[in-house]
């Protein structure tokens, strides 16, 4: 636990100590805007009659919370090894590398959630988004969301540990593919039937739908509408458990292999 909290603190320092505190707070509030700006413009111009704005906006925002963790965990391997050249010291410390990654991810997730909350404070009244929160589901969903994102992040981090020249473009592509399929921006029912079915099993889909229902208090489209909110929570819990366990094991083996191959302190200047 001590190592986890220390890693969270390091994560906070990395995220925030590049500027003054008040500038960072502005950055924190402004950063998520990029994720939903296109949604507001496109649904504002073309989609007013569809009534899908709340679906897309909530979906995009909650996907953003996952993607930040996912991206940051993968990038931190490269950043610590190549940029700051501190990966070897992290491995030498008494805290396990998995704990370190999870601690950093927790900070990133909390920062992303803080940015989301700040923006929802003005988005909900201005855009008249449905807001009938079920706090129980919201909190449970937020905790499970961390585990889903951290599980995926750990899995990608294990790949990054074993490859010294892998670029973050790979994470971007994966993140982009999951974004299309997760139904964050539009109901996957728009896809051909095969892809619509696949969309239901993308790990992010039930989490995003759960959070949408938990915050809006209603089912916004037919996507996953055959499942009750409790069933959704169950599916998110299952995804979280499987992904987190998988990521945990992969980083364990990835770390061992990376140490054997001498990839912990290698720099390529790529």
């Amino acid at each position, binding site marked *: 636990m001590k190592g986890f909290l220390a890693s969270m603190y390091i994560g906070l320092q990395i995220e925030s100590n590049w500027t003054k505190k008040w500038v960072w707070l502005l950055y924190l509030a402004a950063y998520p805007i990029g994720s939903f700006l296109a949604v507001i413009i496109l649904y504002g111009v073309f989609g007013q009659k569809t009534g899908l704005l709340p679906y897309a906006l909530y979906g995009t925002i909650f996907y953003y919370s996952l993607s930040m963790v996912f991206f940051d965990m993968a990038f931190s391997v490269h950043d610590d090894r190549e940029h700051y050249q501190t990966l070897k010291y992290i491995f030498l410390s008494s805290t396990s590398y998995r704990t370190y990654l999870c601690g950093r991810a927790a900070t990133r997730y909390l920062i992303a959630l803080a940015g989301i909350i700040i923006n929802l404070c003005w988005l909900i009244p201005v855009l008249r988004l449905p807001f009938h929160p079920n706090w129980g589901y919201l909190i449970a969903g937020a905790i499970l969301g961390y585990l889903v994102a951290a599980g995926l992040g750990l899995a990608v981090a294990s790949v990054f540990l074993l490859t010294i020249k892998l*670029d973050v*473009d790979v994470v971007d592509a994966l993140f*982009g593919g999951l*974004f*299309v399929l997760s139904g964050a921006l*539009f109901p996957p029912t728009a896809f051909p039937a095969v892809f619509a079915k696949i969309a239901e099993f993308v790990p992010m889909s039930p989490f995003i739908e759960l959070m949408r229902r938990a915050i809006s208090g209603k089912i916004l489209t037919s996507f996953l509408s055959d499942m009750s909110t409790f069933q959704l929570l169950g599916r998110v819990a299952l995804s979280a458990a499987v992904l987190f366990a998988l990521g945990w094991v992969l980083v364990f083996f990835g770390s061992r292999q990376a140490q054997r191959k001498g990839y912990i302190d290698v720099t390529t200047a790529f």
Partner: protein
Amino acid sequence: MKKKLLLFLRTLNARAYVRIFGQMREATWVVASVLGGFFTMTTYIYLYRTLGTGSEFTGLVVLGGFMTPFFMNVLWGVATQLYWEKEMGNLELMLVSPAPLSAFLVGLSVGGAMHTMLRSLAVLFFGIAVFKVQFTVLHLPLALLVFLVTLFSMYGLGIVFSSLFLYHGRDAWRTADLVMEPTNVLSGSYFPARFLGLGLVGIAALIPTTLGLDALRQLLVPSFTVKVLDWRWELLILIGLGVVFVFIASWALRAVEYKARRDARLTLRWQ
């Protein structure tokens, strides 16, 4: 003078070579960036289908998908490059060499544009093949001219930012990260920029992609009517922007390099 020019060209060539061939050595980079671009394009095409807009929007998104990698390259491959060189410890070596920093940046831009071209063409190809998009080739030479002028202007802007970022540390990287997505949106990569309204378009026009993409859409998508300005005007503005950016870049590079030397920021890492 001849010696200086020769040195400039040799530096340009050397940096462009690394950018073109270095990036090709890792197949995963190329595949991932093409896939990333394709997925973004797919997202917006299906979004338009959900919203029930006309099929011409598919063509607009595919063109946006073609241009977006160039902007990403300008932002991450040119604007933040001197920051990365500083972080990797290469900047001090570059500065003590007789090679001019401006040649290095121009080489970076030329190389970056060439290696991004391959990826962008792949995204365009998949967009056309998968979504059955049709473009008119009647004005292809003019479209090529507009495209090249847009690149000139975009990379000019990249060099301006590169100069400014030279002085800064991690805040430069954070700034680039912060502006990336809003800039993509405002430049009309995913929809006609006209829908932003005149006030926002006026600001967005400072990003060369906005007018470049609008002009390309006018020339290549026959049913495109929601233009910002006539493409001829847009071409003139882009030329003007490019020239202005080059002047600002050359001034900023000297001024910021001097300031960075004076304040001992050129070798300051991890700040």
